[in-house]
């Protein structure tokens, strides 16, 4: 019974199920829950890459909390993750296969799916991640600007140089995304949904997890490492692993 209680659930089951509320692998310290969205209320969901972008940037300044390479790879993983959760693609033998070529609702996802579908043969996951990582930051930022979640700002710096930052339009919402993920991992909304588990996996792969979970990150990391390998769809786990590998490769590819 206990073991089942820890099993993350997906779909309608995750809501309101008493059994899964017992999950509390990450002890969230203090009571930081925003009043308006209490622990029992299901908070609004964002697209995976949008969510990752907001988690990976400072809520106030809009500056990245991740180095550019890891940010690009994390966002690329999230973009592919979106297509995996909608059932448009799957990973078989570490290669990306299109399983459903009906256009996804989102134009960005559609563009990526088309790129994958036009290839005559399947390419390995790292190849797609590296390819998408090059433009992922720009792609997702553009989508966020279009959705009104982020606004473009020019800042004048010293020596007349102009610096462009993308700042979240609603700081509370931006800040909330990290807190929400922490709560999701702590089981405040019932069993952790697979997409949140995947987001946490990406955060771990890119080195962002300590910033999201603070002192609780070892427990959170153990929780993700335990459950993500059983992800549904399995592609989410494969993507998170591939991102971790590529981030590590970048470290080893010595540029110093």
């Amino acid at each position, binding site marked *: 019974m206990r073991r089942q209680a820890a099993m993350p659930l997906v779909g309608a089951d995750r809501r309101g199920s008493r059994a899964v509320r017992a999950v509390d692998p990450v002890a969230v310290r203090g009571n930081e829950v925003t009043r308006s969205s209490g622990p029992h209320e299901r908070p609004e969901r964002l697209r995976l890459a949008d969510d990752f972008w907001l988690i990976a940037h400072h809520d106030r300044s809009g500056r990245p909390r991740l180095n550019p390479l890891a940010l690009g790879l994390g966002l690329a993983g999230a973009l592919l993750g979106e297509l995996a959760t909608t059932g448009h693609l799957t990973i078989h033998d570490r290669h990306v296969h299109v399983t459903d070529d009906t256009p996804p609702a989102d134009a960005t996802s559609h563009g990526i799916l088309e790129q994958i579908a036009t290839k005559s043969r399947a390419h390995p996951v790292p190849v797609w991640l590296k390819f998408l*990582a090059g433009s992922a930051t720009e792609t997702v930022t553009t989508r966020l600007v279009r959705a009104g979640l982020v606004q473009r700002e020019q800042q004048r710096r010293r020596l007349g140089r102009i610096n462009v930052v993308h700042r979240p339009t609603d700081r509370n919402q931006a800040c909330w995304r990290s807190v929400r993920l922490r709560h999701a991992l702590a089981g405040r909304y019932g069993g952790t949904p697979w997409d949140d588990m995947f987001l946490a996996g990406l955060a771990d792969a890119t080195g962002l997890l300590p910033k999201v979970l603070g002192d609780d990150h070892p427990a959170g990391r153990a929780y993700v490492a335990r459950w993500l390998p059983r992800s549904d769809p399995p592609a989410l786990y494969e993507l998170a692993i591939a991102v971790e590998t590529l981030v590590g490769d970048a470290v080893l590819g010595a540029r110093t």
Partner: protein
Amino acid sequence: MTLALGRLGTAHVIVFVLTAAAPLAVVAGVVPVGWAVTGIVGLPLAFVLVAIVLGLFCVGYVAMARRVRNAGVFYSYVARGVGRPVGVGAALVALAAYGAIQVCTYGAIGPATAGLLRDTLGVPLPWWLCSLAAWAFVATMGVLRIDLNGRILAGFLVAEIVLLVVLVGVDLTHPYGGQLSVATLTPQSLTGAGMGVAFAIVATAFIGFEGAPVFSEETHRRSVPAATYLALPLMTVLYAGSAWAMSVAIGPANLHAAARRHGTDLPFVAGHVGGGLIVDIGQTLFVSSLIAAALSYHNTVARYAFALGRERVLPAWLGRTSARTGTPKYASLAQSAIGLAVIAGYAASGADPLVRLFYWLSISGAFGVLLLVAATSVSVVGFLGAHPAGESRWQRIVAPSLASAGLAVIAYLILAHCDQLLGVPAGSPLCWAFPASYAVLALTGVGWALYLRRARPHVYAAIGLGAPTPAAHLATV
């Protein structure tokens, strides 16, 4: 489709390799200290002989680099060529050897900087304070991954090489006793015990030549072989030429005494030009060369520890990166902590930093790297023999076998004359302590790998593959 980064050219890789090799640090550090401690004069010839063996090694090495694109280099090659247990043993030896080489640089940076400050500004500082400043610099750069600008590095490197060439010119135009002595190039200069001692010192000097394959992933196909084959002869000519020129200017018979008197200033005073300026410039470049080498080896050690951490062979925390900078933060901090402890230990004990820290640790580190090179050479035969793909017989078997034999001979000669090498009495415990420590590390690695094979087969299966396999992740939970 490639990683969205600019590809590096051959020139960039050469600058990286030569910066790690630190030519001026070799000519002003390793060579004079070697002369001072051992009194063996035949270094110039030894440079040429060892370069030939290393050149043979490189034939198979770069062929392997084309096939196994893994930045964990030696360790992954050995794991793939000879087997995973030996691979893990090699990894631990690599960590210790490069760690020793990294830490030893502080033993030269401190006294050289202190001497420079005393002579130019008249400020007397203890050596360890200068070492600590360099340590703080390296520790910070290692964690922040502020890339030393390639052009600045190249600029310093060119300045070093120009200085060395000028010094050679000055030395050769001021020969001792009015004749160009070739005594240090004759086989007689290396007879008896001298050979092992000279080989060890020279092997120390060449460390860094093996760096190019780290860039396999980021360069064009030909850059790694080209950089390796260009860097090795360049190093040989510079080192052998400089050492010979010094011996001409000072006179082979006087080398021991002169090296004892002048220490790391030897190359700059050898030509009797005596100009204060050239000594100051030389000392400054010597220090900068050492600091660049310290940083380079710091990153090498951190990368090895990181590679082992992410394959879960060593604790996983070593394999984590910093979010903001993407550096192997914990691996880097661990190496810095060891560096600090060593500096503090030497400062507290009052031991001579130049001989006991710089020279001893660089020799023992180099011996470890030599063992790795030998193991890699054997694994090249193993790997390319089992998985040939268009390599010639020469690349697959002949050259690596000859290199392995040559390296084994060199390693034997070093061990046989260890007392003279370290300048300690025959039978001193130090003589067996340093090879024994590598044996212990290698055996520990083998034992650990065998344990992993039984207890965590998924981790074991991923050894040397450069990436955590999905199952290896499960195994850590």
